[in-house]
């Protein structure tokens, strides 16, 4: 297991490296630059801006200096002044033996071109937690609705409960956020006036976006849970468990349910990564200051460090959750071994 995890972590580094190269090349081959405005900036200004952000260097140098800023840790001495160009994600104060007020600093994701005072790390610090909260709430809703619905449908298979449950789930799959969001907004916000139409900051304003995000995913989880539980219920060891006289409750909860979670865990992993790193549609419709909009505005505005930062962040989340998913498999099903 330990060896397996190490191998996976190495693969993760390789994938992140490849993604960074591909993204870098792809985004730099898109015509237009970060300073292309409708009203043209003077030639000299653009040249100065390019120089300031190191955009006049050869491409490979830009790439290596960008990655170097992230990967290579530095140590600074003395008080840290807020500075958009030198904003590190991790700042660890070192013991006095290393020098006066020595701080180990790591992971500088660079400045944002759109704002002189903000850096990509500021976005991570301020906007990511908002998306994270929303995504987590949505995921909890999805699991809380989806799993019981799927379990009920599987246990009461081919009864009216099953048909109703799966009908609802199939309806739910047809309700992407882009549809649920305006309908919820109108119904609860405008008509009943019990929830704020948009905004962020308190529990009430979180309910609708989390519901909109959770609903469609609840439907997916319900269908998966049902299918996998049905398959498990037909296995030999379930028959054995029943034959040796275990109560049905124990058979279902201890023997069947745990194993039927595998496909569910498989989708929950990437889902978690997608939800907590921000979702553009929900955040736009409900006016939530999360990460979502940076995924779109950074690309349309050619804000190179923000593009790289958001894509690497998302890929990092995705790879880590996939690794956790694979580790969970071994716990859920002892037959799975990683050697």
């Amino acid at each position, binding site marked *: 297991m330990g060896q397996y995890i190490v191998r996976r972590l190495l693969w993760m580094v390789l*994938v992140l490296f*490849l*993604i960074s190269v*591909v*993204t870098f090349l*792809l*985004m730099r*081959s*898109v*015509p*237009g630059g970060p300073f292309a405005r409708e009203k043209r900036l003077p030639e000299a200004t653009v040249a100065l801006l390019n120089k300031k952000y190191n955009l006049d260097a050869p491409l490979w140098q830009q790439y290596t200096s960008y990655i170097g800023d992230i990967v290579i840790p530095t140590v600074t001495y003395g008080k840290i002044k807020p500075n958009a160009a030198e904003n590190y994600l991790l700042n660890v104060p070192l013991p006095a033996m290393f020098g006066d007020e020595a701080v180990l600093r790591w992971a500088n994701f660079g400045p944002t071109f759109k704002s002189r005072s903000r850096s990509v790390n500021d976005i991570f610090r301020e906007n990511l937690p908002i998306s994270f909260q929303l995504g987590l709430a949505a995921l909890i809703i999805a699991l809380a609705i989806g799993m019981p619905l799927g379990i009920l449908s599987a246990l009461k298979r081919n009864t009216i409960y099953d048909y109703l449950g799966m*009908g609802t789930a*199939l*309806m739910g*799959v*047809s*309700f*992407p956020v*882009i*549809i649920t*969001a*305006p*309908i919820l*907004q*109108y119904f609860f*916000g*405008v*008509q009943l006036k019990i929830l704020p*139409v948009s905004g962020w900051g308190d529990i009430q304003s979180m309910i609708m976006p989390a519901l909109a995000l959770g609903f469609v995913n609840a439907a997916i989880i319900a269908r998966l849970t049902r*299918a996998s539980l*049905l*398959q498990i219920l*037909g296995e030999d060891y379930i028959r054995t468990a029943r034959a040796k006289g275990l109560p049905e409750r124990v058979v279902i909860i201890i023997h069947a349910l745990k194993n039927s979670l595998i496909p569910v865990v498989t989708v929950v992993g990437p889902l978690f990564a*997608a939800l907590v790193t921000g979702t*553009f*549609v929900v955040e*736009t*419709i409900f006016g939530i200051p999360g990460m979502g909009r940076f*995924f*779109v505005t950074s*690309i*349309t505005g050619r804000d190179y460090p923000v*593009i790289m930062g*958001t*894509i690497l962040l*998302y*890929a990092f989340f*995705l*790879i880590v959750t996939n690794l956790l998913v694979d580790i969970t498999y071994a716990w859920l099903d002892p037959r799975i071994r990683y050697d």
Partner: protein
Amino acid sequence: MATMEQTSNTPVIQISEKKKGESLWGESWKRLRRNRAAVIGGIIILLNIIAAIFAPVLAPQKFDRTNLPDNNATPAWVTQIFPNMKPKDQGGYVTISEKYPIGADNLGRDMLSRIIYGTQVSLLVAFIGPLVSIIVGLTVGMIAGYFGGATDNVLMRLVDLMYAFPTLLLIILMMTFFRTSFASPEPGTISYTLGQLDKETGGMILIFIGIGLTSWMQMARLVRGQVLSIRETEYVQAARALGATTPKIMISHILPNILGPLIVAETLTIPTYISYEAFLSFIGLGVNPPTPSWGSMISEGSKNISSYPNQAIFPAIALFLIMFAFNFLGDGLRDALDPRMRGRD
């Protein structure tokens, strides 16, 4: 084929006494017709197809005809459904006009006409999106599965890498790339032709390419798995022994036998393509305005949902109906074509 199945399965007697000479497709068709939800889905899709083809006849107005004095005009019945929309003569803000069956948008364009024309975009994406992903996924999957070894390894690692990319981000990046680089002004180049073609279709060609190129991985994995098992079967070995060439074996011996699961898998992903298009149009990278897309209509409408909810809700219902239809029809098709999937055990 038939004899093989009969020896391994029990219902031999049932088949011979009840269903004489019923073809596989005929039986599937019967099963599909018995599924009420799938039939309703099929009817909705049919109506949508009719709406898309006859849009110029059916739509009361041209989709891009703006009429600024009539902006946000709403017929009386809509204000009754949405009680917060108070008409002007009752002390509200809504201009009542019966000229527009379900209302006009903020530029005074007829919403019903725009929704009817919007079916064209959604349906084209629903049918051509899967086609692009099948072409790419089939090619990659067949080559990886058939040749195996290092080729397989390289191609499947590529698929793994693509999976690690966030799909939506990749689409946004690619769409931005396409939209700006194909706007090239020199005639005669390929990118110019593509750009012109895209302009003619209201920006749809690039959506097909963008969506197709980012969603072929699942197809490639599916095809590879199928090819891996089929290339070892006796009839493929026999074909090889008879001297059939590799392309011949691939196209006329392997392809027909993997088509079934392929079609089922693609039908089930059609709603995803529709929602991708809606998403792209929502963020402004989809169809070019003024070509109507339900995604961009929802995006526009949700900006003033408090005052004119009809502008977002009606396109949302249209989008829901077609997603619903494809989901239920896809589900029914799967059950009909592959009854084992129902888990009868």
